[in-house]
């Protein structure tokens, strides 16, 4: 059995956490002041930050279960950062509260103002009332937290397992749990993403929306985690763990997820484009014109084509620093993607703008930075709490050896 002390997290994590907390706190103060003067804009920006950072936490849960199902060295070395990501869910629940406040007081989401006679609202009935929406939100986050709690508990038990048999049994238990739970996870992500993001445009609908979020959150999580691994690779203990082939495999996964994201996004667009019905095209028309159109075009070239072409090359996947550069670039493009979805959606108070007009508020920067600072602080705190690799995992030795092959 490996010694947990050998894989203790480096001290610098605490320093990074403090810096994040400082930046986050300053941005949070700015956001609170800005929101006091324009509650709807403040909360819309908060939703943007929430689905990005909360998505990394929820995506960690999905990837964690995925690696239990597939096995492989990449999963063993990525497990602890993913677990730390899932343990940020209590903070994510706290970060959900401003949105709850906005919905309860009818200050964000246009549907909270639609008359009950509106055909869509009449069809959805009690499902589309603020309290039902809030209750569902807590159920989704509660289910995610339960999954995260169990997986983290068993993983901690594995660390203190005294024999190879015990630790193998726990791994088997986690793998068996992950199969059916991943199905439930995808369903919950579907419902959550429809409630939190798609309902910003209450008259529009898309059946692939949930899958777009399953993939989008997994992609942003994977990119974030690769950047974290690449920043740990120069320090002990990860210096002796990570090798070129781990990054090669993670790079292939990023490439695959970038392609799946593009596939789903285009599938959604193609169906609407082919159908050409006003109630469906209403979503895309503001998003392919003017400023939003430029962001949409940048998604095709910078969120898909550029990372795709770069990641086709083996060398880019094998250098930790290069791969981290691409991962951070994709992460930034994920923000653009969310912004492109949230930004043009219907507003309660028009601010004198035409519906769907291009408009960027400084709060759109303040809120994601505030949430990001707080989230990163929590994440680094959690990451430092446990050894950086699952020390008693039956495949740990094999996984480390794998990375240093050719």
């Amino acid at each position, binding site marked *: 059995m490996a010694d947990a002390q050998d894989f203790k997290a480096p001290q610098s994590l605490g320093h990074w956490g403090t810096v994040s907390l400082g930046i986050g706190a300053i941005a949070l103060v700015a956001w609170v002041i800005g929101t006091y003067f324009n509650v709807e804009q403040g909360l819309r920006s908060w939703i943007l930050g929430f689905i990005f950072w909360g998505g990394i936490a929820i995506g960690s849960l999905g990837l964690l279960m995925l690696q239990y199902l597939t096995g492989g060295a990449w999963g063993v070395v990525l497990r602890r950062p993913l677990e730390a990501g899932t343990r940020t869910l209590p903070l994510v629940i706290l970060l959900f509260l401003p949105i709850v406040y906005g919905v309860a007081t009818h200050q964000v989401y246009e549907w909270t103002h639609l008359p009950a006679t509106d055909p869509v609202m009449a069809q959805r009935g009690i499902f589309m009332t603020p309290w039902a929406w809030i209750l569902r939100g807590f159920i989704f986050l509660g289910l995610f937290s339960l999954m995260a709690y169990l997986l983290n508990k068993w993983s901690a038990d594995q660390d203190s397992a005294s024999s190879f048999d015990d630790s193998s049994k726990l791994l088997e238990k986690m793998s068996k749990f992950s199969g059916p739970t991943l199905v439930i996870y995808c369903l919950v992500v579907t419902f959550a993403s429809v409630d939190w993001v798609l309902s910003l445009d209450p008259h529009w609908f898309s059946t692939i929306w949930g899958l777009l979020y399953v993939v989008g959150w997994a992609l942003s999580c994977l990119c974030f985690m690769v950047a974290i691994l690449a920043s740990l690779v120069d320090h002990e203990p990860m210096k002796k763990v990570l090798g070129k082939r781990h990054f090669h495999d993670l790079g292939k996964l990023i490439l695959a997820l970038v392609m799946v994201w593009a596939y789903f996004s285009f599938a959604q667009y*193609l169906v609407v484009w082919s159908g050409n019905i006003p109630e469906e095209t209403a979503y895309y028309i503001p998003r392919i014109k003017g400023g939003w159109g430029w962001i949409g075009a940048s998604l095709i070239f910078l969120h898909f084509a550029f990372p795709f072409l770069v990641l086709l090359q083996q060398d880019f996947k094998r250098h930790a620093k290069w791969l981290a550069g691409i991962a951070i670039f994709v992460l930034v493009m994920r923000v653009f993607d969310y912004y492109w979805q949230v930004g043009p959606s219907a507003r309660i108070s028009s601010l004198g703008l035409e519906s769907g007009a291009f408009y960027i508020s400084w709060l759109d920067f303040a809120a994601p930075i505030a949430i990001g600072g707080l989230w990163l602080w929590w994440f680094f705190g959690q990451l430092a709490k446990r050894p950086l690799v699952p020390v008693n995992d039956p495949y740990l030795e094999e996984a480390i050896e794998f990375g240093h*092959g*050719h």
Partner: protein
Amino acid sequence: MSENIYGIMAEFDTPTQLVDAAVKVRDAGYTKTDGFSPFPLHDIDEALGIKRSVLPYLILTGGITGLLSALGLVYFVHVIDYPIIVGGRGHFSLPAFIPPMFELTILFAAFTAVFGMLFLNGLPSPYHPVFNIPRFALASREKFFLLIESRDPLYDYEKVRAFMESLSPQEVFDVPE
């Protein structure tokens, strides 16, 4: 006798022995060499000094060819040969063309991958001298083999034979043509 020899082969018990021996063979300057193992050995490529295959570039070329052929096909059909208006859209409607372009990219790339792999491996190959050694059948079960071909520029029967013996193999064979 040495006229009809295809090469000299050594048998090893473990993959580590094979890789260690392969490194020595490479360092001795032999280039027409090959290693045989029941399962993929990632280290053997570097140990024998085998360069990366050109296959990825062939596949990329195949994919781009597929993409452009599909674009050419739909462009010819919808814009030049039989231009009709469908659903009120222009003749050149890229979103509708993307699915066939995507499919043909995959198809051509996959075909290039399969047939390129077979071609570069020299397959199908109904006869190969290595199978003249009865024990070579074990290469697909539990033994590891290393071969120096007689067309190697440094090949000299006595020297290669002695060199192979010096690698402490299980056994050394002359492989007849």
